[in-house]
Every structure is written in C-alpha cells, then in structure tokens.
C-alpha cells in the first residue's frame, strides 16, 4: 500500500466522508480515509431513526441512508479507505501511526490531515453519580449500539438521565422494542436536546420527562435494581423530601458529548476549553499548519447536515494546503461570543474569504429565550454585519447563521466580530 498521501482523513463519519470527497473534488490526488470501525459511516450507522438530511437534501432520511449517500460518493471518487484501523499517533509534521490486524503497524506521511474523530459520551463518573457499581448502567450511545447494531436489549425497565437527543431517541427505540421507560430525568430547568425529539420520542409515546430532577444514587449489587431520584434547585442542590426510589434494571445516561481530541493534542493542536475542540479558522484549519478538523471533533453539532458542510469546507482547505504546501496567511479577525452566546465556531475569519463564498457560524446560547429572538454579528462599532431572526433560542439547539458575500465591504473595516442573541 501507499505510504504518501496528499490528504489523510481520520474518521469516516459524515464529517470525514465529506472532507474526503471535497479534497478529491478540489484536486488532491491521493486521499485516504482511516476508520477504526469495520464499516464506513461513523455514528450514523447506529442512528437508524429518521431526521437526517432535512437541511441539505430536504429529505428525511435514516442515519445509515444518509451515510450511504456519501459512502457511494467516496467510492465513486476513488478515495482509498482503511477500515478496522486505529490511528494511534500523529505528529505536527503530519506523520501518522496506525495499526491494523492484517497490515500491521503503519507509518504514513501526508501533506494535510483532516481530523474527524467525532465525540464521546460523558460518563457516570464525570457527573459524580454515587451508589453501587452494578451492570446495567450505560451511556445512551452504547445502548444504541447494542440495540441497533448488535441486536440486543440491554434491559427491560429503564430510567434515562438527561434529555439529550440520544437519550430521547433511545427512549422511543426501547419502547418500540417492548421495554418500559419509566422516566426521563433532566437536572436543568429546560430540555437539553431538540424540541422535535421531545415531541416525537417522548410526548408521542407517553414517556414522562421530569425537569430539575436527577439521579441521586444507583442501587443494586450485580445488576441495577433501582435508582433514587431527587429534585434539585437552581444550584443543583437536592430539595429535601423529594426523594423517590424508582425500580428499574437499567440506567441510561444522556448527559453530554465531548469532542474526541486525544490525537489532536498529540499533534500540538490547541483546544478551546469551552467547546473542548480545536480553535479553528473559517477553513477549519487548526493552529498546526496543514491539520484541519471537521464535525463533532470541533464542537458537538445537533444536525448532521452542518457536519457535512463543515467537512466539505475542511476537505477543500486541506486539498489547497496539500497543493500549495501552505495557506496564504490572510488577515484574520476574531469571532467572539457576545450577549447570551456560549461559543462561536469558527474562532476567526479570513477577511478575504467572503470574496469567494459565505462563511457559516455555529453558536450555542447560554440561557433559553422563549420568545422571538434576533441573532446578530456585529463589528467593533456595533454595526450589524449579519443577522437572523428566530422563534426562540435554546441551549439545546445550535444557532447557525451565514455571513454572506454581500457583507464583504463591511467586514473589511472590522477588527473583530461579536455574535449576540437577544429578544427582538
């Protein structure tokens, strides 16, 4: 096999597949996708529910169908793929070390890298959930893999902690499979996943969601026998007299996702402590020249369509870098989180970029606003460069907005841009 590539993509989820296709389409000759699982497609393969592709294709597809579209495209473009292969290490000079059962220890060189490793789930320990340590405590994604890929039910009687999307989707899935979901508990006063999932997965199936309520203790020796639930105040402190022991055999945790950046760190990529993903510019290049990043590895997206779009941008940038062996430094201005915004991706913008195409921003709100809102991108003088109206702003749903080429002139005068979300 080859040892020298123009672009190597690590991870074959929608972010990685789009990056590989875009790299090819933009002139990179030798493109390789490395995937540790035995199939291409990433997390989509276990997302057999529909709801994918609404923004990009105007179609409501199940995850594997959405992935297949891009898998076919990757094959059609002659992208090389290596599956069942784990990348162990990457260097800032873009040497990649990986292992594979058949091929052994691999050392590859490449002109550009796209990091597309996705994210992992937060665990019981990270939320300091006390009690015993029996079988039957799973993250929602692990349970999803058991049910949808392996074909096994990890329990019969469930409590789900956290109103994240995977948790709600699993509540419906398990109900369809004949299990009983006793309760979904959410510590926050608001939903942390998409409203559409609340309606389609919980309301429609009569599954109870209790907000400002959490699991206080896990009970059971060999297998979970019950959990103790408790209500909490705004500061997450238990409210006396609200404890309830809920008998169940399984506890699913849907308490957040964390971008998977162990490899990125090894290569010297700097991470944003708010997103837990790399600092990126509008081409999704990290601080390390030639190392790009796309998808959930940058920040946790809620819609796959934007992951695909980000993958295209990163792949295009990687192809250009592979060709020119550098990127024009350009004149970058910072994009910062303003009023009621937790973070903005990308972190900086090349002013010249708008001459070519629009630049999409992704943001998360800090506090929910349950009335009509306006998202604005403002320069240092408060001049509005881009704006978008919305029916509400919720921390569980990503806000997105594009700065259009029409704003080119305005942006040339800017020294920095701030994003805000306010009541209209």
């Amino acid at each position: 096999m080859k040892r020298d590539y123009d672009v190597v993509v690590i991870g074959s989820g929608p972010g990685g597949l789009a990056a590989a296709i875009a790299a090819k389409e933009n002139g990179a000759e030798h493109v390789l996708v490395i995937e540790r699982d035995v199939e291409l497609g990433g997390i989509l393969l276990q997302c057999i529910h529909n709801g994918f592709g609404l923004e990009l294709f105007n179609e409501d597809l199940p995850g594997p169908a959405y992935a297949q579209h891009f898998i076919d495209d990757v094959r059609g473009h002659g992208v090389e793929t290596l599956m069942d292969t784990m990348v162990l290490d990457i260097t800032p000079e873009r040497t990649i070390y990986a292992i594979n059962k058949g091929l052994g220890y691999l050392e590859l060189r490449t002109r550009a890298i796209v990091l597309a490793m996705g994210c992992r789930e937060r665990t019981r320990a990270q939320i300091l959930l006390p009690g015993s340590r029996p079988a039957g405590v799973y993250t929602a994604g692990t349970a999803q893999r058991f049910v949808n890929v392996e074909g096994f039910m990890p329990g019969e009687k469930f409590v789900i902690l956290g109103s994240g999307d995977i948790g709600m989707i699993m509540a419906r899935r398990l109900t369809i499979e004949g299990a009983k979901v006793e309760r979904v508990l959410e510590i926050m006063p608001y939903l942390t996943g998409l409203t559409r999932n609340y309606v389609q997965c919980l309301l429609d199936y009569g599954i109870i969601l209790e907000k400002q309520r959490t699991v206080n203790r896990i009970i059971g020796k060999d297998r979970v026998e019950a959990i103790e639930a408790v209500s909490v105040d705004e500061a997450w402190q238990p409210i006396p007299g609200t404890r309830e022991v809920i008998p169940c055999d399984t506890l699913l945790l849907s308490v957040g996702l964390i971008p998977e950046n162990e490899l990125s760190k090894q290569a010297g990529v700097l991470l944003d402590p708010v997103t837990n993903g790399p600092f990126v510019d509008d081409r999704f290049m990290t601080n390390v020249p030639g190392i790009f990043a796309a998808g959930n590895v940058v920040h946790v997206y809620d819609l796959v369509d934007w992951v695909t779009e980000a993958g295209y941008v990163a792949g295009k940038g990687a192809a250009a870098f592979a060709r020119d062996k550098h990127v024009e430094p350009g004149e970058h201005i910072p994009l910062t989180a303003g009023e009621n915004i937790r973070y903005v991706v990308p972190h900086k913008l090349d002013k010249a970029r708008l001459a070519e195409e629009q630049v999409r921003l992704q943001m998360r709100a800090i506090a929910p606003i349950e009335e009509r809102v306006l998202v604005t991108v403002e320069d240092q003088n408060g001049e509005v460069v881009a704006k978008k109206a919305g029916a509400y702003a919720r921390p569980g749903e990503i806000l997105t907005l594009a700065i259009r080429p029409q704003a080119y002139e305005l942006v040339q005068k800017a020294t920095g841009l701030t994003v805000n979300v306010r009541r209209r």
Partner: protein
Amino acid sequence: MPKKYDVIIIGAGIVGSLVARFLSKYQLDILLIEKEANIGMGASSANSAILHAGYDPIPGSNKALTNVMAVEMWPVLSQELGIGYSRCGDYVVAVTAEEVQVLEELLARGQRNGVAEIEIISGTEMRRREPLICPDIVAALWVPSGAIGDPFAATVAAAENAVMNGVELMCGTAFEDFLMEGNQIIGVRTNQGDFHCRWASNAAGLYADEVMHKAGVRPEFIIRPRRGEYVILDQAEFQLTQTTVIFLTPTDKGKGITVSGTLHGNVIVGPNANFVDSKENKDTTTEGLQEIWEGGNTLIPTISRKHIIAQFAGLRATGNAPSPDPALNYNQDFIIEIPNNVSGLVNLGGIESPGFTAAPAIALKVIELLQNAGENLQEKPDWNPVRAPRPVFRNLSREEQAALIAKNPAYGRIICRCEMVTEGEILAEIHAPIPATTYDALKRRTWLGTGRCQGGFDIPRVVAILAEALAKTPEEVTKKGGQSEFLYRSTKAVDQDYLNMEALI
C-alpha cells in the same frame, strides 16, 4: 475415598493467593477456593495500592512485623511474578504545629520499626520537590522506601504462579462450613460439595470472622467493614510533578487522605474511612466524595473535579483482635495463628491496611506456623518461582508493537480506545492459566474500560469477544459473575412467516 488435600485455602485475595504461591514450593496438594467468579475481587481490587514503608503500625504488633518484613520482599517478588513495582517514596505533610508533632511521632515510630532513611524535611524543600503542593505546608516526613504496586495484578500473578506449580483453583466455590472430627478439621463444605483436607487456611478477608466462628475459634472476634472511597483523575489532564505518594497527616480516623500516583499513570485521591453496616456495601456517596475531595484539595489545590474519570470504594476488614503481645494494648491487629482449641486451622483475620504490603510476609509466617506445628515441608525440585508477564501493548515502543502485531495480528486491533488495550491482550487473559471470564476481571487485568470513556466504547466489543471465546451467547456474558448480565434478550425477531410470504409475492 474422595481426594484429600494437604491444604485448602479459603479466599483468593492477595493474602490467599500469596499463601498458595509460597506453599506451592513444597510437596503439598493444595486447593484454593474463591466464592466469586474470578479471583481478587475483594479488598485486593479496591485499595490505595501503596506498599507502605512501615512507619505507621504500632511497634511490635503483627502489622508492624509483617509490614516491615515485606518491604524488602516486594522488589524480588515483583520481578519473579512479572508485575509492576515502583519505589517512588512517600510523604506525610503537616500544616499546623500539632501536625508537625505527629510527624515527629511517626518518625520515631518508623525508626523503632526499622524503616530506613526516614527523615523530616522543611516546607520549602517539600514545595521544591512538588511545586503543586499546598503553599501552607510547614514540614513533611519523607520516606524513600515507600512504594506503589498493583494489588490486582499481584493477586492474579501470585495465583497463576501457584497454579503453574500445581495448586488447584476453584472459583465460584463458597466455603460454608468445616467438616470436623472432634476438634480436628478434616475438610470444608462448600456450595460445590465437600473437600477433605489436613489443613484449612482462613484467608476470607471481610468474612474471616464468620469462617473462624464455624470452627469455634475466637467467637468474640468481629470484622466491621470500614469503607474507603476514591476518585481517579484523567492522566491526560492531571499529573503530579513526580510520581509519588502524598498523605495528609493521619488523624484518629485513618491514615489520612492521599494524593498518589499509580502504576497505570493516573493520580488517585482518597480514601476516607467510615464504618458501614454491610460487607457488601461498596457504594460511593455524595458526602464521601465531598470528604475525599476536600482532603485532596488541601494537599493539591489545583486538582479539578472536571478531571475525575472514575470513582470507587473498597472495604477494609477492620477487626478487634488484640496484639499477641499484651503489653502493647492494641486491639486492631492482624491475626496470624494456629489456634490451640482446634487442629488443622491456619487462621488469618483482620487483614486491613497494610495488608496488601504485608501479604508476602504473612505467607512466610504461614509456612513458619506449619513447620512449628510439625509439618515436615519438602521442597519440590522443579518449583518455578517465575511467572512471565504478558505483553502490555501501550507500554511497548513502536518497534516492539510492530513486532508483536507481526507475530500475532490480534494485537493489531484496539478494543479499548482510551487505554489502548488490544484484542490480543484480552484473548491472552481469557486463555491464561487462570482464565478471566468476566468483564470486570478483564478490566482489572488489562485496564480496559478504565479511561475517559469508562467502557462506553469497549463494552459491546468485549461482550462479543467473551461470548465467542467462552462459547456463550452474549446474553450470558456477565460484568462480574452472578446475575450481572449485560444483555437481556435479542431485539424483536423478524416474523419468519412474514418473510416467507414476502418471498411468495
């Protein structure tokens, strides 16, 4: 006539396993029984992993004698058994004048116990050695002979070496009673049937009191489980400047909370010490985690809750046995004896901390007791003290990793992404002389599932590997034996008639 063993050892924790291993040197038929599905799941799997230097126990007590004796055994033993060992030294730090007083007591006690090179250093010197330490420290006790080990690996390796040398091991075999002829033990009754023996050795940890009571020994001896809780920090996020062990000054409640490096690279914070009502209550609690966190923060103010990747608790087998020397007036000693009111019992009990450290010395004491009781122990000519370690992929150089995969492709597939554990390592444990048959056994042997994602990634894969290797269905694979299955049933089956109808149309 059923087979008659020379010795049956009850309980395969670090104590029972090392007793088996040292006794396997002699021409004896030995059976080691363990009630759990795998060995080493009791206190030996959940402790601080510190090989104490011996400045803490009361001079003259069994704890002090065996602790100090064992300190010099571990370097050799860990070589022979192919397990990790690091003599990194330990510190006890003091903030107040009263605590400095305690350090001086510890220094004096250490010197009486024969602990080498122990000294008190200044706060400034302590801060120079560990800049992360709390700035209020005024002095520290420095004990270069303190070390860290891996109690779980030690238990497995000791038992494996025993098995290699002819010891029989039966897991899932719970002692229920002694078979007695008068006051002579002639065997043990277990949930798997009766087994005859000349000697029985009580190494049942938390349950040692109940075991000895069955023989009518020390009815007044009671073990009260005393729980210690811990958290583990992500090694990628937090490291001490040097791998070492740092204790808060001990109080009446225990040795004091520790922030300590481990052989696996993570920093561990804990334990507290609270009596609990049940010998099975290994729950972690909100209050307990708060307590250890406060202690940890006093030592190292920069540790962050965000870096916690795991929590667990262990139970100390705290007894009420007086020291053999009545002059000591100490009532929490190890029992290491052949009691005089029954024959055929080697009785061990109350083996709380420093029991991991002391275990090899306890094993030598057992041999001595048997010899003193008139056993004519003959060495086996072919006894092999060496148990070779198995490859640990993440600890190898790139070249070694490449060579290993070339030799055995199973080492080319990562099953645990955080700790980089390969399929090869997992299969090696499943097919080891003492097979790992549950997820938790694999976890403790290979360290899979102990990293940031806590098994989220590997569990489905490990369940599949275990099912295939053990010729079980995935629904039969357990986390830790008993009723701890991961999976309940298949998802709804597709109706075969419906498929046939489809085919017809």
